[in-house]
Structures are given as structure tokens and as C-alpha cells.
């Protein structure tokens, strides 16, 4: 009976190709609108470290001045950033497996012999631990030496793209590059890498950037450079003399510190260590506010920084609204299509089809249309995401890099398309099967 009903449903679709195409297009548009907006919202609130959420933390301290709380947008009224001197002190702890400072910089890049045209690149100032916490893989070489994090050594890790540009993708380990007049030795080249954690890396950094090279943060102690981060200074910076001193010796907050523990239990011990550090600092007149700190998990960081309720949340609601509108349209079109079947339904009912048979036949027809709508919706979703990704490049949060049509989104798109159409098909199918047989026959 199912095969027969499938045949009937298919025959009915081929009889009205224009109307069916309109229904499929309506559904596909609604599904794509909902899925593009859902994916963008999902990407914004997605936790790239969900598998180790309880072992990774952003260190936040309330180092602001006594008069008021930190005036940032963070829900916990603590900056995402800490000062360099606090980073140096906190990174002496061996409780954390990885200590990863993150700051941004950049400039003109070339080969020492200047044989290529110079290009502007974004650089990440960080530690060797970065490559462990962010689980990056290397095509050639590896991170710089551990000693480069204690005493500056001009070493650099390149991304796949930059290595391609400078060295045609060849093994460049041991070769030299020139960044802002400083000669760096290449220690490693990363594999092509889907930067799902871009929004974590760039928290409070310049908007919309994608790091292309990585250099040790120690650079700031040895060369006069100006990181591209915001600087929040609770004290009068003139106390420290030159701007360089402000950067390394002052209390201005300009880098974020991420830590990863071997086990979740170590987090409490590290918290005690941070609290002790703050208490100690209070004795020399720093940290005038009540003792507060946070070891915020990536999930909490996303929430604290309101990334889970960004404009994409509203965007997502609009997308869902569009899907509902399209569903209402599809219901109307399906109803019009099914009403045309009424005389035939009357004949079939008189000849022995039960109400259930008729309902199933029409629901199957809706399912076929839904499947087609879902597949077309999938293609439109892919197109929409590409469009959105390109239009956001260089403007917003780097999380747009994660706007991709993965298997999760693909499955969800097909399911949404199918369920939406089945839902849209239920009412017209029910209407057609509950009409009295005598009345349907009279119309035939």
C-alpha cells in the first residue's frame, strides 16, 4: 500500500509541476533563511573548546581603580585583559599545563633580500603553549624553543597561507623573514587550519583579523613595538615614564591570558594562587577594589562577552519568522493543490480508500515536496553562508570564519525542510480526508 501511495503522490506532483516548483521554492527559501541565520547564531555562541570546557579558562582579575567598577561591557564587570606584569607573575605558576598570553600586532613582512613585494600581515604575540592549547598541527617544524618565552629569540611560526606566499609552500624551517625590520627565523609551518576558535583568540583584539604569523610575546621586552590591543589603564600612566614602560611595567591591561589544566580539579588550586597573588598586590597598593577574580571557562567567556546574544540572535529570530511565513504560504499552496484532488478523493473513498489512506497519500506528497525543498534549501543555505561570510570579512567578529555548512547544519537543514513540509502538509491533508464523501462525489 505504501508503494501504491508513493506512486499516487509522485503522479500528483508530476501533474502540477509549476505549482509544485512554487511550493518547493517557497519552502527552500524559508529553510535557507532559517538555516543561514541559525548557523551564524550557532557559530557565534558555539564553544570551540566544549570538549575541555572545564579545563580551559580565561584569567580575569578586578584590577580597576577604587572609584568604580571596570566600565567594560563584560557581564561580570571584569576586563578580559590583564597587564603584562600580572601575566609575568601569574605565568610563574606550574599548576596550569599551558599558559597562553594573547596579544595582537602586525606590520610589513618580506624576505630579508626584499625580492618579493612587501605585504601587511597580522601577527599573534603569544607563547609556545599556544600551539598546545589550540591544538594546531604542523606541516613543517614545530613551535619555537621554550627558552624563547623566557628570553627573546627572534623565532616565528608561519601559517600555511603565508608559507605559500613567501616560499611557494616549501619547507621554510630555518629560513628567515623580515617583519617590521626584525629578522625572524622560521621554526614551523602550520597545516591549513579551520580557525573555529577565532573568536576566543581575538577576544578584545582588533575586529575581524586572522593571524598569519606567530611570534613570542617576549618581543615586547626587547624591541619597541606597539601591540594592536586596546589598553585599559587604571592608573595614571605618566607615573611610568615612557610608553614602553607603560606596556611592560605599568598596570595597563592589554593582553588576555588563557590557561589549560591537566585536570579540572587543578582549577581550584590555580584560583587560590590567583587570590594569593591579588592579596599580595594589595599590600603594595594595587587592586584597591574588593578581591575578585574569575577563571572563566570558554562557555562563560562567550556569555560574559554577550556573544551568545549578539545581533545574530535577532537575525536568527528574523530567519525563523521568515520560515514561518514561508510555511504559511506553503500551507495555502498545498491546500489549493489538494482541493483540486477532492473529486478524485471522493471516488477513491467510495471505492474503499479509508480516511487514513487518503491522509497518508497526501502527507507523502508533502514529504516528497519537503525533501526537494530541503535539498534546494541546502544549496541556498550554502550560498547564503558564503555570501554572509564574504560580506562580514574584515568588519565583524572573526567568528564569521566558522559560518560553514557542516554535517550538523546539513542534517538539520534537511530535517527542518522535511518536518516543516510535513507540518505544512498535515492541515491540508487532514482537510481533504475529512470532507464528506458524498460532498466530494457531488463535486466530481
Amino acid at each position, binding site marked *: 500500500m505504501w508503494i501504491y501511495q508513493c506512486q499516487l503522490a509522485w503522479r500528483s506532483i508530476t501533474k502540477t509541476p509549476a505549482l509544485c516548483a512554487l511550493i518547493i521554492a517557497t519552502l527552500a527559501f524559508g529553510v535557507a533563511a532559517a538555516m543561514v541565520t541559525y548557523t551564524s547564531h550557532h557559530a557565534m555562541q558555539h564553544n570551540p573548546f566544549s570538549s575541555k570546557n572545564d579545563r580551559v579558562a580565561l584569567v580575569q582579575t578586578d584590577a580597576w581603580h577604587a572609584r568604580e567598577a571596570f566600565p567594560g561591557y563584560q557581564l561580570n564587570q571584569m576586563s578580559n585583559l590583564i597587564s603584562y606584569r600580572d601575566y609575568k607573575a601569574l605565568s610563574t605558576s606550574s599548576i596550569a599545563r599551558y599558559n597562553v598570553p594573547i596579544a595582537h600586532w602586525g606590520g610589513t613582512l618580506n624576505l630579508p633580500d626584499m625580492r618579493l613585494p612587501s605585504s601587511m600581515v597580522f601577527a599573534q604575540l603569544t607563547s609556545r603553549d599556544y600551539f598546545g592549547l589550540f591544538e594546531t598541527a604542523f606541516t613543517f617544524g614545530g613551535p619555537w624553543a621554550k627558552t624563547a618565552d623566557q628570553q627573546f629569540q627572534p623565532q616565528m611560526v608561519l601559517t600555511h597561507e603565508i608559507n605559500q606566499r613567501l616560499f611557494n609552500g616549501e619547507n621554510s624551517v630555518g629560513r628567515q623573514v623580515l617583519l617590521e625590520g626584525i629578522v625572524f627565523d622560521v621554526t614551523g609551518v602550520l597545516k591549513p587550519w579551520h580557525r573555529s576558535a577565532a573568536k576566543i583568540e581575538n577576544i578584545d583584539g582588533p575586529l575581524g583579523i586572522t593571524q598569519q604569523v606567530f611570534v613570542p610575546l617576549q618581543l615586547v621586552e626587547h624591541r619597541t613595538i606597539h601591540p594592536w590591543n586596546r589598553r585599559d589603564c587604571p592608573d595614571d600612566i605618566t607615573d611610568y615614564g615612557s610608553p614602553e614602560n607603560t606596556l611592560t611595567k605599568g598596570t595597563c591591561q592589554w593582553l588576555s591570558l588563557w590557561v589549560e589544566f591537566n585536570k579540572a580539579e587543578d582549577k581550584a588550586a590555580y584560583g587560590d594562587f590567583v587570590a594569593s597573588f591579588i592579596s599580595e598586590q594589595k599590600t603594595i597598593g594595587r587592586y584597591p577594589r574588593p578581591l575578585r577574580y574569575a577563571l572563566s571557562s570558554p562557555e562563560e567567556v562567550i556569555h560574559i562577552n554577550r556573544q551568545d546574544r549578539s545581533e545574530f540572535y535577532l537575525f536568527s529570530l528574523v530567519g525563523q519568522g521568515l520560515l514561518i511565513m514561508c510555511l504559511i504560504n506553503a500551507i495555502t499552496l498545498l491546500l489549493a493543490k489538494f482541493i483540486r484532488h477532492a473529486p478524485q478523493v471522493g471516488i477513491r473513498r467510495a*471505492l474503499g480508500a479509508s480516511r*487514513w489512506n487518503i491522509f497518508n497519500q497526501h502527507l507523502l506528497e508533502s514529504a516528497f515536496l519537503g525533501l526537494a525543498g530541503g535539498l534546494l534549501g541546502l544549496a541556498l543555505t550554502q550560498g547564503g553562508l558564503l555570501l554572509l561570510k564574504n560580506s562580514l570579512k574584515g568588519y565583524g567578529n572573526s567568528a564569521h570564519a566558522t559560518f560553514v555548512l557542516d554535517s550538523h547544519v546539513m542534517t538539520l537543514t534537511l530535517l527542518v525542510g522535511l518536518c516543516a513540509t510535513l507540518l505544512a502538509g498535515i492541515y491540508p491533508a487532514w482537510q481533504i480526508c475529512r470532507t464528506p464523501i458524498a460532498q466530494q462525489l457531488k463535486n466530481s
Partner: protein
Amino acid sequence: MSQAILHMQNLNKYYRTDMVETRALADFNLEVKAGEFITVTGPSGSGKTTFLNLAGLLENPSSGEYWLDGTSVKGLNDAALSRLRNQKIGFIFQSFNLIGDLSIWDNLDVPLRYRGLTKKERKARITAALNQVGLSGRTHHLPSQLSGGQQQRVAVARALAGNPSFLLADEPTGNLDSQMARQIMNLLEELNAQGATIVMVTHDADLARRAPRRLHIIDGQVADVRA
């Protein structure tokens, strides 16, 4: 004595609108035995169509009892009624009611599909039914490619293919010219002679007179039964 195929006892049917209640059938009693050929006549609005709808299980009675081939239909759900309709009743409609985009073969296949017969069984029944009405060479034609009389013969074949307990014909000659009408009537008489039970509603007094038993309905009640 042969068994009653159709037995209606004190059957009533009311149609209600917001303001008015109309009694379409009033204490209707009828018994049709296997092998009978009955014609039902009556003026417009007398209740003929209501009788046909109730007899064909297309509508439920408001009150009263109806036994179809020994089964009381009272309280049966839609699936059970559909099954009874499919297995016990062969419909022949005035406007043929063939499905326009299905071939003759596929039209005959419709009731058999809902009965869940195998492909082999369906093929045997369709072939036999088409042979019976003399249309075995037209299986792949669409209804629109046949004359009115041929279409009605297809409808008769469709009704016969299910091997029902009785044939319920609603003005089967109403849309045909007199020559075609006579052919269809001859066919029905032939089928009756072979043992088919037939209940036929008609306006045509001449055709009605050809049946061994005639029923006349006025104001929803049996006014006259002539055997």
C-alpha cells in the same frame, strides 16, 4: 430462502443547519435479497440520493439499523466502513466517475489496490471484468478516449472487479443517449441473470419497469413496492 444482502430497519436521516432540520429519510425499511434487481424511483428531493448514500455507506444514518450482508454497520469506524464499502459494494455512478488521468486498467485497479490483493490476483480480476463488459482491448486507453457508453461499461467493470455483494447504480443511464442506455441496461440485466444483486436509482420510468422489483420513494419513505 436466500439471505438479505441489504436490510434497513427504521432508518432515519436528518440534515441540520443552524435554523432548519430536514428529515431526508423517515423510518425507512427495506430488505434486498441476494440475486434481486431493484429499481428505485421518486421525484426530486424525495430521498433517493440519501437512500443511495446510506446504502453505499457514504453517509451514516441518524438513527435506525442497517445490516449489510449480515453485518450491522452501526458504530463502525471509518476504516471498517471503508473495508465494507470496498468488499461488499460495487458503485456505478451517473457521471461514470472514472479517474481521468488513469488508464482503464489503472481505474479498475483502484478498488483492488485498497483491498490489498496481489498483482497476480488483481490482473486476473481486471481481465475477467473487462472481458465481461467487452472492453478487453482498451486497457491502456484513457477514459477521455472512450465514448460515454464505453466509459459506463468501464465503470460497471470496475464495480464487478471487486466481486461485491451487490451493485449500487445511481442513474447509470442518465448521461447516455437512449441506445447506449439500452446497452447498459441490457448489461445490468445480464449480470443480474448471472446472479448479481443490483439496486438501481433511476428517473426513467421505462427502465424502472424492466426490473422485477420496483421501489418508489416519496418524502423519504417507501411509498410503493411493486414486484
